[in-house]
């Protein structure tokens, strides 16, 4: 019997290209050796055995995107080669369209389980498989299954629909960095023209340029995916080449809860930070933060409020200790697919122990994000902050009024699945009614980032 005929005979067995009835208690560990067999058989060109094995993978792990894509591809190959596949066992085009529509409706309502089932059904129709894969990827991403999301997006990225393929490729690159347990490590170096500033950014001394090296690691735990509780732990060290007294080390953590819907998102978290400066205790801070966002037509409106208790642990900075309120409002809009512009307003109020340091500040912000191609982004941001100090400053002999013009740009490039390269440059122009306190600060650097889902 020829190999082709054998394939045809096997595929003609009842149900081989039809729906897979999943086990009542899925178990990925049982699926794993089947997947190994399937991969090996498929690589050896034994399509019929590979198909049988992939179906076993799906029986034990219904959400396995690789298996779904492989079954679909093998069945499609058989169909295109004219093999007598059981056409009646594959949902017809009409049923697949209905399944896709139901999936979209369920997805819009946030009913992910039902939506996923419908999208899986739609996968059986080759002409809808890319769209169904894309939404299955979104659901997997929302549930924190980064690797699986990546596999779905990979399938969708092969779509003939260029817009869908681009979006899927973009999300595929993002998905590999996410997971229920995800780690990010950031290593970089920069030049900073002025490192000697007070906690509120006031100039202490001109000409304090230095080279700076930074390493940062952050572990994110999202057991329930993007929705539900989460935790974040981080540590960083910023060392100076010459001005070691400004070396900054810190650890921090946050516990929070998030709801992510199709058009709304809301999160609340408590955070704690501990910093040392020059090897000595510097700052202890507690933070409460609430963030929300809502889509209104093509515009995304976002708002956040944060209350931070800051206790500076060094005597020379203790006057800055106090309560800091920050409010941010922003609107985001994408006039074309690859470009996102944003505009907003930032306001803050510091009630400091030293009343002369307490201030109110606010000002506009504008941002631009351009996707040059999937995995390559250019970001720009500019803002102006007007700061009014609350009390007359006796030593300065005036009530201070400052202005800060900030502008920054960054290039982010995903050079490999988990690796990205960043180049940043930023400028601050500080003006004040006390001329001696005006200054300019330029900072720019390069960084390499590894980010990946561990689970």
């Amino acid at each position, binding site marked *: 019997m020829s190999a082709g005929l*054998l394939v045809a005979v096997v595929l003609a*067995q009842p149900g081989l290209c039809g729906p897979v009835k999943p086990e009542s208690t899925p178990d990925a560990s049982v699926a794993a050796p*089947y997947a190994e*067999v399937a991969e090996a*058989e498929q690589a050896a060109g034994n399509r*019929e*055995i590979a198909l*049988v*094995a992939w179906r*076993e993978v799906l029986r034990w792990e219904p959400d396995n995107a690789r298996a779904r894509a492989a079954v679909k591809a093998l069945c499609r190959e058989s169909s295109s080669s004219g093999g007598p596949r059981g056409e009646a066992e594959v949902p017809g085009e009409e049923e697949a369209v209905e399944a896709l529509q139901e999936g979209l409706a369920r997805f819009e309502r946030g009913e992910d389980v039902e939506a996923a089932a419908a999208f899986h059904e739609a996968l059986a129709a080759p002409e809808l498989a890319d769209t169904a894969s894309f939404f299955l990827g979104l659901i997997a991403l929302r549930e924190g299954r980064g690797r699986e999301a990546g596999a779905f997006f990979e399938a969708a990225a092969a779509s003939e629909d260029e817009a869908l393929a681009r979006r899927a490729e973009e999300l595929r690159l993002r998905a590999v960095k996410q997971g229920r347990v995800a780690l990010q490590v950031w290593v970089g170096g920069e030049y900073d023209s002025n490192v000697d500033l007070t906690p509120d950014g006031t100039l202490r001394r001109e000409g304090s340029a230095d080279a700076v090296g930074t390493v940062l690691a952050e572990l994110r735990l999202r057991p329930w995916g993007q929705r539900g509780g989460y935790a974040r732990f981080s540590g960083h060290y910023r060392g100076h080449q010459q001005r070691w007294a400004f070396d900054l080390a810190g650890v921090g953590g946050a516990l929070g809860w998030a709801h992510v819907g199709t058009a709304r998102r809301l999160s609340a978290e408590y955070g704690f930070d501990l910093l040392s400066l020059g090897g000595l205790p510097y700052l202890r801070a507690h933070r409460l933060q609430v963030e929300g966002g809502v889509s209104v037509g093509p515009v995304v409106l976002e708002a956040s409020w944060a209350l931070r208790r800051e206790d500076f642990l060094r005597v020379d900075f203790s006057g800055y200790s106090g309560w800091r309120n920050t409010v941010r409002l922003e609107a985001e809009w994408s006039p074309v697919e690859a470009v996102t512009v944003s505009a907003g307003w930032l306001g803050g109020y510091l009630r400091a122990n030293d009343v002369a340091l307490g201030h109110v500040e606010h000002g506009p912000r504008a941002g631009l994000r351009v996707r040059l191609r999937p995995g390559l982004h250019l970001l720009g941001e500019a803002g102006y902050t007007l700061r009014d100090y609350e009390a007359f400053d006796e030593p300065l002999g005036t009530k201070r009024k400052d202005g800060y013009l900030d502008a920054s740009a960054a290039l982010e490039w995903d050079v490999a699945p988990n690796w990205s390269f960043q180049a940043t440059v930023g400028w601050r122009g500080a003006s004040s009614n006390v001329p001696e306190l005006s200054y300019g600060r330029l900072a720019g650097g390069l960084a390499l980032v590894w980010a990946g889902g561990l689970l």
Partner: protein
Amino acid sequence: MKRFALCLALLVLTAATPREATVHLLQGARHFREGRFANALVEFKVARRLGSGGEADWYIAASLVKLDRAEEALEAFAVARREAPEAGDALLDYYQALACYEARLYLCADGLLEAVGEASGPRISAQARKLREDVSALFRTPPSPASIDWYHARAAQSRSAGRPVLAARYLEEAVRLAGRREDAYRLAEARAGLVSLSEREGPVVGGGAP
């Protein structure tokens, strides 16, 4: 009946196999018994990956025979004989004989079928006798040089394809066939080829031979 016998043998052999592997061996046996040989092959391969040892190779080989993948079956039988020689039996020899027959290794098949004899039950024995009669009919006259050339050619192809075990099987058949001719056509060449395979490719000669 022969499917049932395979399952019975399998049940005896699974006593020393890891539990997870045993589950798959038994599941494979059930598929095999019910004629779902592709499913059986998958289960046996999973069992092997889970540590069933060489015994799964015997059943992988038998499944490959049922799936008309005779050459792959011959390679799997060679692995099985090397890894778990104690797990073989007359029934599995019969399946190997079928693989030899399908691959046109008729004298290989004949030798195995002779060993099967009555040990595998009356039905298999009858089928073995019938196959031996067919083989015997093929060799009423000495094999032609052209047919021996074909085995050398297959051996060369198998070797260049990185399948030394299969190459050895074809050369062994060439040796047997040459022995049936007075001029021992290309016998020395076949033997030299086998020696070369043994030296360069590892223990491929004899390990899978009946």
